[in-house]
């Protein structure tokens, strides 16, 4: 694919042990020097802390997928600087195995990557690749991961992954990534094409991984409602640049600008904005129907 170009290393990028991902002036151009050349990333600078739940949103072709593919070196840095955990991805030599073990990547429609004879084999594929020799240990990790995604290990482990339903396949694929116990979980539209219930289950799983195990989550999504309710922070990409990098509540106060970027306003954000315009101040962390309801009740009760 692309070879990293020679670059000027900028010494400004300071990271500490709390930083999961730090980018400084990251740029990337597809098919450089050809008539198809297209700049996908333009001076991306950001810092994501360990344990954050960050959503990356933007219109199609805004560079979100290109950015997240940088995070485990599937796309190498062309110019600018990028650090992920202890790795400096701007350098030529990167411990790819370790990086990819630490940064679990769930692609769009991950069920299309399944290939093995049995669910167990497929989930163990990553573990095997990362050098876990002991079969029993692998199976224990796989059992844990399959349990996490809400499947019955005993029932599915010997089934062919192609015999499962679409939603189950996606969980198996997710389990294949979770089994590696990543520190950062990068997901590209993990809920696309799922029914509402499947969506909710995947999101609550991701949320609990983030809250309980402290996994840093970077999630690309088109669904503003799920982003609004789950993420701590939203980064909006527009034409390869970061247009906004703020909390969900703050972001969706800019209703007109969001709509102009072809993004929709989440229902609850609209409702909260309307409440604010009418003089009700509700806390920024009230994002679900229940939370907002409680907040409004408290306000009412205080009156």
């Amino acid at each position, binding site marked *: *694919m692309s070879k990293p170009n020679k670059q000027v290393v900028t010494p400004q990028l300071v990271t500490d042990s709390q930083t999961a991902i730090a980018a400084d002036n990251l740029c990337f151009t597809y*098919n450089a020097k050809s*008539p198809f050349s297209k700049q996908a990333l333009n001076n991306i600078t950001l810092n994501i802390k360990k344990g954050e739940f960050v959503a990356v949103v933007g219109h199609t072709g805004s560079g979100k997928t290109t950015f997240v*593919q940088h995070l*485990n070196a*599937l796309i190498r840095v062309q110019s600018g600087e990028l650090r992920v955990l202890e790795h400096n991805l701007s350098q030529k030599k990167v411990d790819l*195995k370790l990086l*990819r*073990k630490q940064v*679990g*990547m769930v*692609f*769009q429609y*991950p069920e*299309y*990557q*399944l*290939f*093995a004879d049995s669910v167990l084999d497929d989930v163990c*594929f*990553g573990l095997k*690749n*990362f050098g876990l020799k002991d079969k029993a240990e692998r199976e224990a990790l796989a059992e844990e991961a399959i349990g996490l995604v809400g499947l019955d290990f005993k029932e599915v482990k010997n089934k062919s992954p*192609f015999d499962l339903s679409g939603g189950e396949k996606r969980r198996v694929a997710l389990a*294949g*990534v979770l089994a*590696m116990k990543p520190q950062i979980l990068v997901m590209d539209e993990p809920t696309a094409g799922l029914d509402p219930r499947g969506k909710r289950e995947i999101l609550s799983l991701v949320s609990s991984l983030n809250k309980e195990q402290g996994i840093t989550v970077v999630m690309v999504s088109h669904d503003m409602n799920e982003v609004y309710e789950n993420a701590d922070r939203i980064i909006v990409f527009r034409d390869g640049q970061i247009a906004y990098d703020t909390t969900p509540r703050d972001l969706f106060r800019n209703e007109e600008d969001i709509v102009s970027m072809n993004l929709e306003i989440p229902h609850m954000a609209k409702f909260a904005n309307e409440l604010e315009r009418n003089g009700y101040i509700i806390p920024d962390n009230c994002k679900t129907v229940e939370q907002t309801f409680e907040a409004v009740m408290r306000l009412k009760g205080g009156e």
Partner: protein
Amino acid sequence: MLKDVTFGQYYPSNSFVHKMDARIKFLLCLVFMVGIFFVQSFVVFGFITVFLIILIASSRVPLKSILKSIKGIIVLLLLTVVLNIFFTKGDPEKDKLLVSWWIFEIWDAGLYFAAKMFLRLVYLVMGSSVLTLTTTPVDLTHAIESLLKPLKVIRVPVHELALIMSLTLSFIPSLMEETDRIINAQKARGADFDTGGLVKRAKAFIPILIPLLVGGFRRAEELANAMNSRCYEGATKRTQMRVMKLTWRDLVGTLVVLLFFVTVFVIFGMKSQWINANVDWLYINDVNWLYF
């Protein structure tokens, strides 16, 4: 990685060659390919080189993209050259034996023959890649369909064949994209395609091939359903959105190419007696340039 494949890679531009009718380009390409196999002497190869340079210049496709297509046949090229060098037995009365070692003999005739074969293959690929780089795959299929039309009389399902071709072509980019995505997904799970022995490397491709095959079948089925639900019926009374028309460019292009080939072949290519009689001036210093 896979984005480097030139096949079917249309190079957008607005040049003379781009604007020519796809059918004419296709036919001229055939003339070129057949013609190349009749070329016997290096002098004529020189003329073909000039022709290719003019053609590539007028198509405004960078030489780099054309040379890229040669990368694909490099193994074939090497094999041809090596085999021809070692296994061409020269005529002891005419040719010189250069090297003789064990069962191998290298004759000067073998070297010349290998060089000619090399040029022939390279020019063949370059010529045809000019066609594919300046013509969109869709135009190309339309051209083939249009050229095969006469076969309808003997009940050849021309339209269906063209459809199969254009579907195949349209599947290539999406399958390549999917391959790229699957490779990335497996890499993210630690798959390693670049190290290990032959068996290990071959095995490493299973996690790519199986999802790709499954995906291919899925796509084919989806496409069949989509076509059925739109009542696709094959060739009956279908019209085309873009009707191909011949223009002055096609006339000029055809004349230039045909004139060039006819002239070159009449003067140099043929070995028949009456031509030799007319080109005595080519025998300089006892070297027969016709056969050189």
